[in-house]
């Protein structure tokens, strides 16, 4: 059984992206991945627009757009596998957008082989998505020889986290502005003016993380802060991308998570050094449009 993140549209079914804002939004059409899967799917409600950790993960293969990495964290704790394909290889037609330059449907599965076989079915060019690689195929086979290992320092590791958040928040702030209570989705009651309709609707229907992302994103794009935040982050993103030496190496191996899993009765532990690398692992892959496997 394949589960779909609630931000993937299925004709006639509610696609809420985990938000109260869209809890009455019946999708008008099937997402491209749904069409390509061509089998019955169950839905899984994760965190609101991927900005919050999911309360639980379904017991089965899951397709989701894990921009903010919350799903991957849970996956790591559970010992599952998370496969994020290269940007622009799986159609986003029918995916509720969060941060368009990083949105990409990926797979949560038990083994890489299972994930790749699913990717092979859903990946490939779709003219309904305007930002795709013309040709992308996935297959899975074990390497013939054992890999040679090298230790390499990542020069911009400390930039990854802030750059990721500035860009992701800026982009999601733009994508959230369509939810205004006018056309579809949640609408507040008792308003007198248009301004009040907008404000009340968003106040009542967006969760804390979503409000935070919208406000931070607007700040990064505002005239006063654009140069110092958004524009600088765009430049830094290019630096980070070019610093990942995929011209020399095939694979970059990093820890996924900085914290140890929360065990019953024990406090959660965080290691600073590990956290940086985890940032590169999760968000670095997003910023550089590379695929990631955990």
């Amino acid at each position, binding site marked *: 059984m394949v589960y779909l993140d609630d931000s993937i*549209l299925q004709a006639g079914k509610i*696609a809420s*992206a985990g938000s109260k804002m*869209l809890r009455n*939004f019946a*999708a*008008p*059409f099937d*997402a491209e991945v749904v069409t390509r899967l061509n089998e019955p799917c169950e839905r899984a409600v994760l965190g609101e627009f991927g900005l919050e950790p999911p309360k639980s993960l379904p017991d089965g293969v899951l397709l989701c757009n894990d921009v903010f990495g919350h799903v991957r964290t849970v996956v790591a704790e559970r010992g599952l596998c998370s496969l994020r394909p290269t940007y622009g290889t799986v159609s*986003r*037609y*029918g*995916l*509720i*957008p969060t*941060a*368009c*330059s990083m949105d990409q449907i990926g797979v949560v599965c038990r083994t890489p082989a299972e994930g790749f076989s699913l990717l092979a079915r859903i990946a490939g060019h779709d*003219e*309904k*998505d*305007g*930002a795709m690689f013309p040709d992308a195929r996935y297959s899975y086979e074990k390497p013939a020889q054992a890999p040679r290992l090298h230790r390499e320092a990542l020069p911009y590791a400390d930039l990854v986290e802030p750059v990721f958040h500035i860009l992701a928040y*800026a*982009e999601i*702030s*733009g*994508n*959230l*502005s*369509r939810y*205004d209570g*006018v*056309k*579809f989705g949640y609408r507040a009651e008792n308003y007198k003016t*248009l301004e009040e309709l*907008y404000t009340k609707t968003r106040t009542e229907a967006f969760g804390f993380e979503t409000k935070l992302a919208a406000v931070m994103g*607007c700040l990064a*794009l*505002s*005239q006063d802060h*654009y140069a110092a935040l*958004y524009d600088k982050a*765009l430049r830094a993103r290019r630096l980070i991308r070019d610093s990942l030496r995929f011209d020399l190496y095939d694979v970059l191996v990093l820890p996924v998570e900085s914290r140890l899993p929360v065990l019953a009765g024990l406090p959660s532990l965080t290691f600073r050094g590990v956290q940086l690398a985890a940032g590169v692992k999760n968000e670095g892959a997003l910023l550089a449009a590379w695929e990631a496997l955990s």
Partner: protein
Amino acid sequence: MKQYEVVMGLEVHVELATQSKLFCSCSAKFGAAANEHVCPACAGMPGMPAVLNKRAVELGIAAALVTNSEITPVMTFDKKNYFYPDLPTGYQITQINAPICRNGRLEIETGAGKKTITLKQIHIEEDAGKLVHDARTGTTLVDFNRTSVPLIEIVSNPDFRTAEEVVAYLEKLRSLLSFAGVSDCKMQEGSMRCDVNISVREAGSGVLGTRTEIKNMNSLKAIAAAIAFEAQRHIDALETGRETLVQETRRWDDALGESFSMREKENATDYRYFPNPEILPVRLDGAWIEQIRSALPEPAREKFLRMTGELGLPEVDSRIITGSKNLSDIFDRTLASYGNPREVVNWIIVELLAIAKGDNKGEDDVSVDCVKFAKLIELVDGKTINRSVGKKILQKILQDGVDPEAYVAENNLGLVSDTGLIDRAVQTVLSENEKSAAEVRGGNEKAVGFLMGKLMKSLGGKADPKLVNERLRYWLTGGGL
């Protein structure tokens, strides 16, 4: 009294003549019932990525070419963010950082001579929807048909000094863009809209005065009137000091003949522009541009020269035909079916436009089946029918789409040129109207018209008037006696 100089720059929005919208496959046609041309994408629903309309880019390149602009090698799109109910996504997709072209120039001609107007840039963007206020119920409704219809905005430098220059520029733009197939440029339908940025300074001053922007003019006449009003308002403010000019947007009320402040909020809106990550940068490579350049239709000026030169047509007529892309197309298509340019022009200007005017249509709206139209002209030219029968059949073509040849045959409208038949009719009419006949013989030429009328009627309107006149004169002057 001080001398003042008016300084103006224009922002002209032109709807591109594409079949579909800029980022979805909805129809971009004007005039449908409210919200008929809407899909999840242009209604702002989440889940449909923007896919750029290639035809819109090609038309943008055509606009760049006819305005002598420098085309950007790689153009990009940006998002302009603001909340308004006519903007379903909460952002407009436009071009800020790398518009399709920059630094264009156009030559205009006014009574004061020739002048070059320079363009800052042209960018592609999507249109917004339309709000319809219902005064009766006090509600406001939204129509998303126009949402995401592709536009280009042509931004000029502040090169204009008179309303005459502005009008000449807009006419030139309309001619260039409509002949290149970029847009139909109909101001009344809003497919061409013009905002005027205007300021006034003392003549000779190098510093620009406070600028206001006037919107909502939907004809060249309204634009000229708005400029005259606004310039005078600025001069009065400078002269008397009774009003302080502020930089603002003003709405022109054509009925009242005044401009009104749109009273935007004190702090200017921050549109939070940023590069749109949904749409990949578009490479405008030389080969593509050349392909579009070589496919550009003949511009009005060249067509005028060809009509007056090679085809030997009068300047007045050629100017009327090349003043409208639509008439020009009708001319070309009709001429392709019947190669007599003088008669084709004649029928378009004298007959077709007269009928169109009666139906409240102008040069840009009149339409006719050009193959049937050509056949009709040929029938008259070849004396199969006479001209007045031809006019009636043209009406029938426009109304019912009749085939002229079949219609003539079915209704027995062929030209009567049987001299025996005409002679018998002349004799009957003369014997029934002896008084008039006597008057003509006495030298009263006016009575000829009366007799001709009677004759044509008795011949069912189908006779060749020239021949009838000839036979009438023959019998009046004694007829072979």
